[in-house]
């Protein structure tokens, strides 16, 4: 299941590798990862969507937090958070009579046309990952689609001091991973 992790890490060479390394060491597939600096240029904010089973999520957050460069890591999978992605979608081989319909459909998704030639349109769209999935599915009916996606960023809705933190006290939700023989 997809885990959504938001973290704050020192903006230094190697930070990205270290965080990604904790995931890849355990064989978790990273679906997307975005990182960029914050208002404090010495700190970067990173959002990761990874394939992690429920029982491993709390431990993974702790192990990421343990990294010397990581200031804070939060599991936003079940928290209220605004999750957004950016995508550039190029549609080619559009039947000429469909071009107009295509642009109208895209409008519904608030997608902007950022490039237009006789042979293609390129749309720019932001939204939740599901919205982008839906638009891509739609556009595939109109022609040949190429696309790039930025991967999710997330902003928690809760105030900073109410964000879920990994607990080392008894915590009802925090059960250790299932025993494997």
């Amino acid at each position: 299941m997809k885990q959504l992790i938001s973290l704050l890490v020192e903006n230094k060479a190697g930070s990205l590798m270290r965080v990604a390394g904790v995931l890849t060491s355990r064989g978790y597939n990273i679906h997307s990862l975005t990182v960029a600096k914050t208002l404090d240029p010495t700190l970067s904010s990173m959002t990761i969507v990874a394939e992690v089973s429920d029982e491993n999520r709390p431990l993974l957050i702790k192990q990421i937090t343990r990294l010397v460069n990581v200031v804070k890591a939060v599991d936003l999978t079940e928290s209220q958070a605004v999750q957004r992605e950016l995508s550039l979608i190029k549609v080619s081989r559009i039947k000429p009579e469909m071009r107009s319909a295509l642009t109208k459909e895209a409008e519904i998704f608030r997608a902007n046309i950022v490039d237009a030639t006789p042979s293609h349109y390129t749309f720019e769209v932001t939204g939740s990952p599901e919205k982008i999935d839906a638009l891509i599915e739609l556009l595939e009916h109109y022609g040949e689609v190429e696309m790039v996606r930025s991967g999710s960023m997330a902003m928690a809705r809760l105030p900073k001091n109410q964000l879920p933190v990994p607990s080392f006290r008894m915590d009802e939700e925090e059960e250790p991973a299932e025993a494997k023989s």
Partner: protein
Amino acid sequence: MALMTGAQILIESLAREGTDVIFGYPGGVTIPVYDVLYAHELKHILVRHEENAAFMAQGAARANGKVGVCMATSGPGATNLTTGLVDALMDSIPIVAITGQVPQALIGRDAFQEADTFGITRAATKHNYLVKDIEELSQVIHEAFYIALSGRPGPVLVDITKDVLLGKTHFHASDELRPLRGYELRLDPDEAEIEEAAAFLWEAERPCIYAGGGIITAEADQEVIEISEILGSPLVHTVMGHGCMPVDHPNYVSMLGMHGGYAANMCMSKCDTIIGLGARFDDRVTGRLDRFAPDARVLHVDVDPCEINKNRRADVGVVGDVKRVLKKLNAKLRETAEKAEAGAEARKGWHDQVMGWKAEHPYGYEKSATEIKPQFLMESINERKGDANVAVDVGQHQMWAAQYLHFNKPRRWQSSSGLGTMGFGMPAAMGAAVAKPDQMSIAICGDGGFQMALPELATIVANKLPVKIIIMNNGWLGMVRQWQDLFFEKRYSEVAMAPGFPDIPMLAAAYGMKGSTVRLPEDLGPALDEAFAEPGPFLLNVMVTREENVYPMVPAGGALDEMILGPQKPVAAGD
């Protein structure tokens, strides 16, 4: 302020951190450092393989609690350190590894002896650095030592480019640490946690103290003895925990786990409260998790929050330095001593029961008048070792040593426990000999592990290190052979170590040291006496029974209370 080169700043910074000795091996990019060492008082021990430099640094650190230091050149030198680094990471041993790197302009162009040390050792270290700016070198060294030693100790690697080593700047010595925003230690518990823990403990009627390597790291042996006495609780310990309590203490049970004592495993399995102190519920201890101590509540104290609730749910978890936590907890228990009465009788009955198990099922073996049994070898060493430091390699001999050797104080026992690295024993004993020259240093290896560390015989002789190396020689890769014996119908595949094994007296003589081989039980005592009395190093090859298995054994996938107690004598859950 004088201009200093990067190499000079490096050595000065190491000296400022209290480094007494560097275990290392030079190479192209580190010659500038060796040029500084040439006229410097900082001691350097030249090894014969870099892997052993990391083990020696560990041996020193495990013996004296200070950060061990090793050094290697770029490329193959650095990669050769990797095994020793992962080993230190698994056992939480504080070492700093310094490696040279090719000049910055060449990085990424497949330069001569270039390797991505920073990338390769990311997973082998607690933290690592690539220093490309001479201005940050001394700061990085200071930080590296701090990270290596603090919280949960571990290995830290500092990779320094050659141009930094050759560069020059003004050296500003400083004891200031830059703020480490991502590294915040929680060492002290708060009052509420201590109250909760104390109340929790007074409810226990069948407590079991589970002491691990964290007790040794924190030097909390006195505190753990105290809590055991306050509660009247039996104490079991991990392989890493040897020496946390004197063996003749009335609460001492034994080591627990896959090859631990029967009473210790039953104590852990049948208790109602596990008091986990600086231990991590490793799979060698727990056996199958879904059947591990099913009735027990758990108090888990550890400095690393990742360990709490990792393998076993903690009813009460306390993150902190185990010595500090125990000091406060013991005080609170004494303060609330009126609560002791309620469970006192039950605890006394439980204590008697556990000690009854201990009396009924001691470690044991079938004695022999004609061959040296491995267990007899360990008993004989135990009788003679006194307060010596003992480092073991990995395998059957390690388990028998853990069973039959007695340690009454911390930091006299060294075992590669988490990673189980063969070739650890002899270099670890060498590091201990350097760190604590007033204590006899003994290495016990199997014939397999000995051959992995063989090159260091030269280092022993060159530095006159008075290490007593005892090879428990059964001609096999014994532990693997045991598994093949018990679970693979004796299909002994690729475990024959006897072919090609050197004549030890000849080998010792070839290196210019004393050595002998002993085969008969009546000759063993005198042979050990001779080895221990020898002022210098000694290599003693002890031919033991070829096929002997370590018991008790919790088979892989088995539950902790389902031990095999001896040949063809499986025992189900507690009598």
